[in-house]
């Protein structure tokens, strides 16, 4: 292990298909048209000195360090802003260029503190590197002239500082904020010698529009913008590439370490989901891992009114096993169950459902997707044949029309939102269907063509009205429908959707969105080119969630927007591994890969592998478990990494159900609210403390790598193993890789997954013999289920009405700095 130094090519890659051949320092090189001379030189391994260029942002040409000579052309053009041309001969190093560069460095250094040895960037400073590269030996201008060395440091942001004395005004931070993040929070204040970087109206980083994504810190070539953790602890010495444990974007990060201490998390440029970008949570809010609230010892108590007593792992596990076994003896096999965690790894989730099915001997297993995206799973599998989004995130780069339904990506999926905003700034059109005026509706340089602010609970009516418009105005892609869809199902649906109750004019009454606005949005979606739908819990966390998901699937099918880049229907999944926890068979009726328990062949495959017989009857869902607890037939539960008392609907019902149980086992990082009703607390481990995989919203299986030992002594998967063993069922795994091997063995869509492959590169399932490198875009050519299917999506108005006693209509949402119930983010500086 060593520190990963990612190559900076200086300027972004050109996407041109035309190739250009030129000569640099006598060597021929062929690169895509539009590539900068600087980047072409890097392709040969020749580094042209540079300061203001950085391959995450467009070239700027301000530092003048990268000047080169081109045979037959006058002057010394900047290699970052000069594109390659056929046959040109470039010289990057000679005496004249060396003299110019050294003089420029002298000017820079004449107004820069000479404190390299005590500077936080020492050892990782591009200015220092360039001084070395150009052979700076003296500064003829002296240091006594007018300078910026007295400028005041801005320490307002909890995670990084801005020290203008070290700033060289290269604008990399300003450009990263604009081009990568899309927030435009930074500017150059003043001009000439007075120029300095300002956040907002020079109001300090914290008060400005800055969202603390860290793009500027990453872009800074000096110690001007630097993490406080690096100032305090020094430069890291090794890096481990891992996957973020916050939202469903699943960004790749380098955990930059000193021994087993995380110094900083830096987004990895090779990460396929994030391409080197991050948000405040993944980049900075990992401090909860070391928070004093972490429980590190197992604890037990006889009654929930007793104080907790710390015990050994052996004692805690033995107690869980004996209590669960006693409950089963006394009340029957089905009296216990478990809940898998969407924060934990696939391997850990797979083990919990295996524990329930193989050891508990029932199917009482469920997961938090029950209250978020289970409608996605069902809706998309019924219509397309797969319980997941259709696209990779990169697909958004080719979208001409983007529809965002019930989702607020700038807060909830910030890194994907930045990519979406980049595409919108390039000219893609935007339709936002959301009761809220989210940032996407209008924020600097982004403006939705149509915002349909419908009344909460009327999604299905709205989607029907959009489809009605497309069908009745003859905007359907008939050739696509004929070739790709089930024509009987389509005909039945078409007859339904044409009915007047689905017209925008009627639906306007429910949604309170004017009919003409609905019609205009429908026309844009159907005729604007490749159209992509992205949606969130604003769709699925409502009654009729599944119907709404089907409604979106219909819209995509009738306009030919499935099975190609730039299109699709995509859930923005909430948690890091909620896709994976569903894929791993966390639902009471499904085995891994969404195969129903009633399928005898699938069941037998598991029975043979596990050496047990499986109950063919689906088990209880979370809600049913709680109901059964109240009627006395359900008495024990194993909850891995979830706080159902805070996150599930009807808190009083949840509390009453938990209180009625005899053995509630909570496994978590912190004593969460649910743990108030627990009899055993098993201290869990963070994503930094174990190996495994997460699956993000684009079905990408990303590696999670252990950077420190589990602080409680056991990783979550080891705890589940210990419970299984204590209950008399030994599972033999030395490493999570073996669990993934078992998943692959038992799950056709994961057949080609292995740690060996994933260590090389993340892949998107299905990954198997037909798609050994995974499947970025699904349903190309034909649907997984064969023909695309249609369902009658009748709108059923909600019976939750406002009135004098309950005058408010509330809806769910996420804010940027916090995550779900806040168990993690509330224990970081994100609370500032």
């Amino acid at each position, binding site marked *: 292990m060593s520190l990963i130094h990612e190559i900076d090519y200086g300027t972004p890659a050109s996407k041109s298909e035309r190739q250009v051949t030129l000569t640099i320092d006598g060597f021929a090189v062929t690169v895509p048209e539009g590539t900068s001379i600087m980047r072409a030189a890097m392709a040969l391994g020749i580094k042209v000195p540079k300061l203001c260029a950085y391959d995450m942002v467009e070239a700027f040409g301000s530092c003048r360090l990268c000047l080169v000579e081109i045979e037959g052309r006058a002057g010394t053009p900047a290699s970052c802003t000069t594109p390659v041309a056929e046959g040109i001969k470039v010289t990057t190093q000679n005496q004249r260029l060396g003299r110019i560069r050294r003089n420029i460095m002298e000017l820079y250094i004449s107004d820069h503190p000479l404190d390299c040895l005590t500077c936080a960037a020492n050892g990782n400073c591009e200015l220092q590197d360039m001084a070395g590269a150009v052979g700076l030996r003296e500064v003829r201008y002296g240091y006594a002239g007018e300078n910026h060395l007295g400028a005041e440091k801005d320490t307002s942001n909890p995670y990084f500082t801005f020290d203008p004395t070290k700033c060289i005004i290269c604008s990399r931070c300003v450009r990263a904020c604009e081009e990568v993040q899309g927030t*435009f929070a930074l500017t150059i204040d003043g001009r000439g010698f007075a120029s300095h970087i300002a956040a907002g109206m020079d109001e300090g980083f914290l008060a400005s529009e800055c969202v603390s994504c860290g793009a500027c810190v990453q872009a800074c070539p000096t110690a001007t913008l630097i993490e406080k953790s690096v100032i305090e602890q020094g430069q890291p010495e090794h890096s481990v590439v891992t996957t973020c444990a916050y939202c469903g974007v699943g960004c790749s990060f380098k955990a930059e370490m000193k021994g087993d201490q995380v110094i900083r998390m830096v987004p990895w440029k090779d990460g396929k989901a994030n391409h080197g970008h991050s948000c405040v949570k993944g980049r900075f809010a990992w401090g909860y891992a070391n928070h004093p609230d972490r429980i590190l010892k197992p604890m037990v108590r006889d009654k929930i009114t007793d104080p907790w007593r710390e015990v050994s792992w052996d004692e805690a596990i033995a107690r869980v096993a004996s209590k669960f076994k006693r409950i089963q003896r006394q009340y029957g096999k089905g009296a216990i169950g478990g809940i898998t965690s969407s924060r934990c790894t696939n391997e850990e989730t797979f083990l919990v459902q295996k524990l329930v099915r193989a050891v508990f001997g029932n199917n009482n297993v469920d997961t938090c997707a029950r209250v978020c995206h289970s409608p996605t799973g069902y809706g998309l599998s019924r219509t397309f044949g797969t319980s997941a989004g259709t696209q990779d995130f990169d697909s958004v780069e080719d979208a001409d029309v983007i529809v965002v339904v019930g989702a607020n990506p700038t807060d909830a999926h910030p890194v994907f939102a930045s990519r979406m905003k980049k595409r919108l700034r390039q000219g893609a059109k935007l339709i936002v269907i959301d009761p809220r005026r989210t940032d996407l509706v209008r924020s600097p340089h982004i403006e939705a063509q149509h915002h349909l602010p419908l009344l909460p609970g009327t999604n299905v009516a709205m989607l029907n009205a959009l489809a009605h418009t497309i069908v009745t105005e003859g905007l359907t892609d008939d050739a696509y429908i004929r070739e790709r869809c089930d024509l009987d199902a389509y005909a039945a649906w078409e007859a339904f959707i044409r009915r007047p109750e689905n017209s925008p004019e009627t639906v306007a009454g429910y949604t309170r969105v004017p009919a003409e606005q609905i019609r205009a949005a429908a026309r844009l979606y159907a005729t604007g080119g490749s159209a992509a739908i992205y949606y969130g819990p604003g769709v699925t966390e409502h009654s009729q969630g599944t119907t709404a998901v089907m409604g979106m699937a219909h819209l995509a099918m009738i306009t030919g927007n499935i099975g190609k880049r730039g299109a699709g229907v995509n859930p923005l999944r909430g948690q890091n591994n909620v896709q994976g926890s569903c894929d791993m068979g966390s639902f009471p009726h499904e085995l891994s890969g969404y195969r129903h328990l009633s399928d005898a062949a699938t069941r037998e495959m598991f029975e043979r592998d596990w050496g047990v017989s499986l109950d063919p009857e689906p088990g209880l869902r979370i809600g049913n478990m709680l109901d059964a607890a109240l009627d006395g037939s359900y008495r024990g539960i194993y909850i891995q990494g979830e706080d159902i008392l805070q996150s599930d609907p009807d808190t009083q019902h949840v509390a009453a159900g938990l209180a009625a149980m005899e053995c509630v086992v909570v496994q978590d990082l912190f004593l969460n609210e649910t743990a108030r009703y627990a009899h055993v607390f098993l201290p869990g481990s963070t994503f930094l403390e174990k190996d495994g995989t997460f699956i993000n919203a684009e079905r990408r299986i990303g590696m999670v790598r252990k950077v420190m030992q589990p602080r409680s002594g056991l990783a979550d998967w080891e705890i589940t193993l210990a419970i299984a063993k204590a209950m008399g069922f030994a599972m033999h795994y030395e490493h999570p890789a073996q669990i993934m091997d078992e998943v692959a063995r038992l799950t056709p869509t994961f057949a080609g997954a292995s740690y060996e492959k994933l260590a090389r590169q993340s892949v998107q399932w299905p990954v198997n013999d037909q798609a050994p490198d995974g499947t970025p875009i699904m349903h190309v050519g034909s649907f997984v289920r064969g023909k695309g299917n249609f369902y009658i999506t009748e709108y059923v108005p909600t019976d939750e009405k406002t009135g004098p006693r309950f005058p408010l209509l509330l809806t769910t949402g996420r804010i940027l700095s916090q995550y779900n119930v806040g168990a993690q983010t509330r224990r970081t500086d994100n609370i500032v």
Partner: protein
Amino acid sequence: MPTGSPWSVERGEEIICTHKHLAGAALPILHALQREFGFIHREAIPLVARALNLSRAEVYGIVSFYHDFREIPPGRHVLRLCRAEACQSMGADALAERVRERLQVNWHETSADGRVTLEPVFCLGLCACAPAAMLDGRVIGGLDQTRLLALLDEARR
């Protein structure tokens, strides 16, 4: 006129509204605001940003880039003395020294009585009749010490 009416959000919004349809509306709006109020009030920046769908930082960057945009109210009169090469060669530096002494101000400052703000300008295009100045938007060429001080006294009355 350099001195304007007192800052008002409502009036500011009106001005923004009448100009925001223009192509590249930021500069025309900022000029109009400065014409009305004598300077660009800090509160105007978010209003302009919202109207044009820009960030506060971007609008602030524009304001701070141009010396012509003032971020604080000027005195009743604004005297711009040319400091470019032709005027310098005709004694502008000495003139400037006298003015600063008389007003007891530095560049970009306003005299204690609030009457005159002194600003440098780099070329008014009047090199043929250097040294030159601009008083409240009116250009004056062929200045000498006596004439300039007389102008100042008139302005301070």
